[in-house]
């Protein structure tokens, strides 16, 4: 059954091109922001530039809040557009838990692709331009690669958690009486 659900999720991603691209870009921007902020925070942990810490934290929180709000809005509109589709699945006996799993799988695939692209782009910018940031990290930490990888993993994990939380909330808000409304043509 897992293969079937994976096939359905991939078909949905392929068929809903516009929302897929929009989500992909949003997650790319979100990950780039989180990853860059996490890297910056790793640097400002040292005492000489400690006062900057609050500033970086504020920027990170701002990026997170704005991105989460935009993503929540996008997901809400998206699920409203997909109400008919969801009601069809429910009429055919698909359980809410299976539907939630399918929607989460779709979200995870898009967000992971967006996040990995965002991380790759940030790394390319960092190493490609030989930026001051890399020099700073190099001067502070010998194992700077470890710092970068750790920040990348944290960014990826944060994005996935955000994605799942948004899916849970939006799905819970929109899964009442969907079948009755569809059959009576009052969506």
């Amino acid at each position, binding site marked *: 059954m897992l293969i079937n659900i994976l096939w*359905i999720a991939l078909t949905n991603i392929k068929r809903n091109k516009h929302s897929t691209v929009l989500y992909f870009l949003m997650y790319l921007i979100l990950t780039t922001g989180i990853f860059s902020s996490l890297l910056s925070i790793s640097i400002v942990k040292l005492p000489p530039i400690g006062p900057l810490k609050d500033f970086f934290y504020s920027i990170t929180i701002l990026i997170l809040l704005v991105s989460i709000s935009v993503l929540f809005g996008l997901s809400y509109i998206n699920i409203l557009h997909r109400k*008919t589709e969801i009601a069809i699945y429910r009429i*055919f*006996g698909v*359980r*809410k838990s*299976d539907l939630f799993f399918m929607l989460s799988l779709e979200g995870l695939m898009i967000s992971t692709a967006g996040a990995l692209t965002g991380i790759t782009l940030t790394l390319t910018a960092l190493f490609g331009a030989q930026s001051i940031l890399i020099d700073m990290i190099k001067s502070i930490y010998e194992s700077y690669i470890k710092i970068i990888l750790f920040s990348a993993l944290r960014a990826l994990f944060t994005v996935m958690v955000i994605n799942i939380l948004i899916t849970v909330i939006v799905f819970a808000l929109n899964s009442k009486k969907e*079948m009755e409304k569809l*059959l009576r043509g009052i969506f």
Partner: protein
Amino acid sequence: MSIKLISVTKIYKVKTSENLKYITGIKELSIDINEGQYIVVSGPTGSGKSTLLSLLGGILKPTRGEIVYHNIHLSSSRDEKISRFREVYIGFIPQNIILNANMTIAENIIAPNGFLKKSLKSLKIETEKMLEKLGLLNKKNWFPPELSGGERRKVMVARALVKNPLYIFADEPVSELDPESRDAVLDLLREYHENGSGIVLATHSKIDVGTKADYYIMRNGEIFFSGDKQKEW
């Protein structure tokens, strides 16, 4: 195995921008549907046919009364259990054309049935067989907006039947169809009936289902005629 409706009443709570209305869909209705039975329900618009089918399919919950699927009591069962029953045993054909416009017709049939414990390969084969029977195999990669109203209705029939359900609840499955397509759909339903499926078909016009059936006529949410011969309402 049977589905029982025991003194079921369904009242819709309709909220508009101006007021709140209570509309009775079904009144104190009791009916048994057995495996292998063919029931034709007819009656005028608003007589409660669609409500009856939705209640039988476990899509609506009754306001009063009880619905029993074999040993499952609808009012006291969790949604997961009722959904599972619907998923495995019931094929539902809604009255409105309800298809996913972003998916091809083959995908429209496979996706809602893809949560069953069936391999994707067998589902694809079954879907192709079903589309062939309904004369739509050459259009399997078309999208619903590219099809005529009758063809879309046939896709909905295929979607409900592909899982080989024990019960088929068909709400106006042959409306909008030309005589040839109408016969193809009714022949297909008869084939399922002969293989043991219980069928409840709602219609507002007189139709020949081509096999022995029980006929009910509904009016104002009640059954006022039942017999083995079709009668004008």
